[in-house]
């Protein structure tokens, strides 16, 4: 038994409110074991981890109850082996334990390294703090070894690089190297791959698993992604509202879930949604299967030809253009009426820029965009207004996609007024109310401000805003990436219903292959500004032709059901 957490309670105080972030959690981690804590946002999984390593500021948190016993081997080289209670341990001892015996990796690799020090300095500092007798050459040698261990190419050179010269995946490797430098007994990884692309994620996960097996350390792995859980975990605990609702081995939890909440979560996974839908389709054969054949006869609603969007890199007093970033580099794309095309790609591949360029939110450098066979590439702002009504967009971030200073009703009726929908304000409010009810929100929510809603509700409001104008075409830009799985399932189902009901044409931009498999018939894969592969979703997923697509698909952590 390496770590034993008994009935841990962590209460956070914000002003006069007390939030029971962790409410009686008990679990234990053995030596050499990977223990996964899974849960949706706000379930208290991160706070549990931070409590174990005692990183929450004392003035905002309190532990009314509980015990965190950690078997701390070999402090000060005296070889003592005692159980420390992390909640009552002294500050000085805690500092020795943290970093040396318990290390932590955070979610955001971009901000967890200090930008003004080289990566080598940061690793060497950790080493020398915990082993003050270590001299500089020895520390440097060990830092290089640590970097080599996490498979950074040319560690001798890379050790003197500043963090901004490294990619996100490399930074996360450096973080792991730093955490592993002192060879801890327990590594806490708080969503270490959430901010990374799938291919990078796959590498990092493989690396962590390898290192764990080699060093025989334990990992407390926190994630929301069941695919990652399936890849990593020995044992799993599912958290909800500060409590562990189910705990067991990977097999037990994923394949014979006992608790309703676990079942609910698993059922909400896009893989399962697809399976359910396929089952339904088999039961009631519908004419939907016939639709792909008719598409060639129809003229495309959106016709993008050789589209290029370059962003100039400007320098100097008079901002001369010195270089270009080729965000979209010669893309041809046709979307027939009524089709849902999924655009898949990793971050920075230009998929978002392409979506915005089609709506003329970003000016294109070259190429042409036609909507309903009308050329819109060069239209001026005023001339675009009639087209705006037919082309809408829904965004990724539910926080920033609604104006925080406007009530929902203001957000919804203003576009209607501009486009002359509805005779009077009362009529527009009535339309807005109906649409809000259509996206499964309460009509009275009209009078509220965006901050009063949860992420999923805001995403529905974003959907409602796109729908008030009764558009023909909607760009869905990573609409579910910021949502929890259960909410994602609700939003996706709603979107599919609306699509069928209003005969919408959708460009569905996402990085999540499992979502693509659920929603789309056609998909296009983008890589560094170009569409590398396009075709029916089922074909591409089963039998990808291009090397890039093959890598991408094999990197996706899958849950075998």
């Amino acid at each position, binding site marked *: 038994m390496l770590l034993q957490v008994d009935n841990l309670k962590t209460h956070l105080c914000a002003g006069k409110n007390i939030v029971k972030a962790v409410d009686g959690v008990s679990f234990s981690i053995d030596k050499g074991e990977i223990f996964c804590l899974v849960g949706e946002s*706000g379930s208290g999984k991160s706070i549990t981890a931070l409590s174990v390593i005692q990183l929450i500021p004392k003035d905002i948190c309190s532990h009314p109850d509980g015990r965190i016993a950690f078997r701390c081997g070999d402090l000060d080289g005296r070889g003592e082996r005692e159980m420390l209670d992390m909640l009552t341990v002294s500050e000085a001892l805690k500092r020795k334990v943290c970093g040396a015996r318990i290390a932590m990796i955070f979610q955001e690799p971009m901000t967890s390294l200090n930008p003004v020090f080289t990566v080598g300095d940061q690793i060497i500092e950790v080493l020398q703090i915990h082993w003050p007798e270590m001299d500089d050459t020895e520390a440097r040698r060990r830092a290089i070894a640590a970097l080599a261990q996490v498979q950074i190419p040319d560690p001798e050179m890379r050790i003197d690089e500043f963090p901004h010269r490294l990619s996100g995946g490399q930074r996360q490797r450096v973080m792991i190297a730093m955490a592993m430098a002192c060879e801890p007994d327990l590594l806490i990884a708080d969503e270490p791959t959430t901010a990374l692309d799938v291919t990078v994620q796959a590498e990092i996960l493989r690396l962590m698993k390898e290192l764990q097996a080699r060093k025989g350390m334990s990992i407390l792995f926190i994630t929301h992604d069941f695919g990652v859980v399936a890849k990593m975990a020995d044992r799993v605990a599912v958290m909800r509202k*500060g409590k562990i609702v189910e705990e067991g081995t990977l097999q037990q939890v994923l394949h014979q879930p006992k608790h309703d909440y676990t079942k609910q979560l698993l059922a909400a996974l896009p893989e399962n949604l697809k399976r359910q839908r396929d089952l339904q389709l088999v039961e009631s054969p519908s004419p939907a299967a016939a639709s792909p054949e008719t598409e060639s006869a129809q003229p495309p609603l959106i016709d993008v030809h050789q589209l290029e969007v370059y962003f100039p890199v400007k320098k100097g007093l008079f*901002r001369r253009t010195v270089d270009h970033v080729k965000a979209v580099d010669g893309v041809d794309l046709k979307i027939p009426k009524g089709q849902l095309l999924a655009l898949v790609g990793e971050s920075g591949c230009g998929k978002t820029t392409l979506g915005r360029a089609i709506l003329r939110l970003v000016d294109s450098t070259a190429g042409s965009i036609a909507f309903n066979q009308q050329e819109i590439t060069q239209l001026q702002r005023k001339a675009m207004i009639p087209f705006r009504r037919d*082309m809408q*967009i829904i965004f990724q971030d539910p926080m*920033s996609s609604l104006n925080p200073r406007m009530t929902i009703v203001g957000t919804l009726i203003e576009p209607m007024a*501009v486009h002359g929908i509805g005779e009077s304000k009362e009529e527009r409010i009535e339309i807005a109310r109906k649409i809000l009810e259509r996206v499964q929100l309460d009509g009275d929510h009209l009078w509220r401000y965006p901050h009063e809603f949860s992420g999923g509700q805001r995403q529905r409001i974003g959907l409602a805003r796109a729908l008030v104008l009764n558009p023909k075409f909607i760009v869905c830009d990573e609409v579910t990436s910021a949502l929890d799985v259960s909410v994602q399932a609700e939003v996706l189902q709603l979107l599919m219903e609306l699509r069928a009901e209003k005969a919408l044409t959708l460009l569905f931009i996402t990085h999540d292959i499992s979502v693509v498999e659920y929603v789309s018939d056609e998909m296009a894969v983008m890589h560094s500004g170009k569409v590398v592969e396009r075709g029916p979703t089922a074909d591409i997923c089963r039998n990808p032709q291009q090397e890039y697509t093959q890598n991408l698909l094999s990197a996706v952590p899958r849950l075998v059901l």
Partner: protein
Amino acid sequence: MNNSTSESLSVDELKSSQAANRSYAAQVLCEAFTQWGARFGLFWIAVLATVAVFAPFLANSHPLLLSEGSVVSSPLLQYLTAGDFVMLSLFFTIVVLIFLNIRFYKKVVVLFVTGSITAIIAFMLVSPPQLTVYDQYRVKQAAGAYEWIIHAPIPYSPKDYIRDEGDTGLEAPLASEERTHWFGTEENGSDVLSRMIHASRIALGIGFVATGIAMLIGIIMGGLMGFFSGIVDMIGMRLMEIFEAVPTLFLLLTFIAFFERSLYMMMVIIGVTSWPGYARFVRAEFLRLRQQEFVQAATACGLPLRSILFRHMLPNGIAPILVAASFGVASAILAEATLSFLGLGLVDDPSWGQMLNQAVQSSTFNWWMALFPGGAIFLTVFAYNLMGESLRDAIDPNLKKSAG
């Protein structure tokens, strides 16, 4: 609707549910003014504003009411200037508007309309007598000509010079038996407290008007630069750099040397030279907001530019400008005090800086003439800075997160 699965325990959500039914502005103000510093600042500014508006009623040699030969008259009202009337009417409109539940921009419109109407009426109709003999009331009262008389709380006008008591009018606070001068008198024998009360109008006025001019130019310039970026931004930035290179104090000195000394000119010059600071804030905010998804959504809905700029972007970017403005008011007050201290302020009207100047010019050190106006300048600037600081803290999302 069943949304139980998306329920969450995070602190943010709890905060937002607690703050339900309140707009962002109300939240920020509420948060800012729970701190004692901001409360003190607001209290001091409120006191100062009230004193400034009612200055003629608080400190005036003309009696409020008197009865002479059973005819009741109010010399004070007769001697009120058009400016006094406008100030009073604006003050009461603001008080009424605060309690009226209408939209903010309507309030601004109402305020503007009443202000301009009263200004026109007052300047056409009100004409106080040109010649004022302050001593007449004291002489007549001593002779027993009035049946009864009600004086203002401080029965001395700022320019009521009482010289005939000796070779200098200087008098320490409460030094004389027959007259009560709470803060003493200056060298011409006029009451220091009365002068300070009337000078508070200049202090507040120059602060608000100069900052108002700077904010107006700054918001328009910064907004255009931030939204259009590109060549507009480039030209705007260079223009800002030119204006930032102009030393305000020396420009003021030059203008005063060439033209007459005028309060309005000072306001305009301070305003015109200090807008780049605000423009920078607005530009940065607009550059950030332009990328925000709700602005993109507004563009995608085909909303007109006017609406995107002023309805969607400006309200979300105004908070940091208000913070800068509260510091700006403080520095405008200081600039005026500096000028007056150098003897380059207004000739006739009292101002705090000019009173400090009088304190140094006298052959003896008259502590009351340095302490009280100096204290007033200090307190006012301090109050604005306190408010600015707590407003800044209230809008800083990082501070909020660290508390969660």
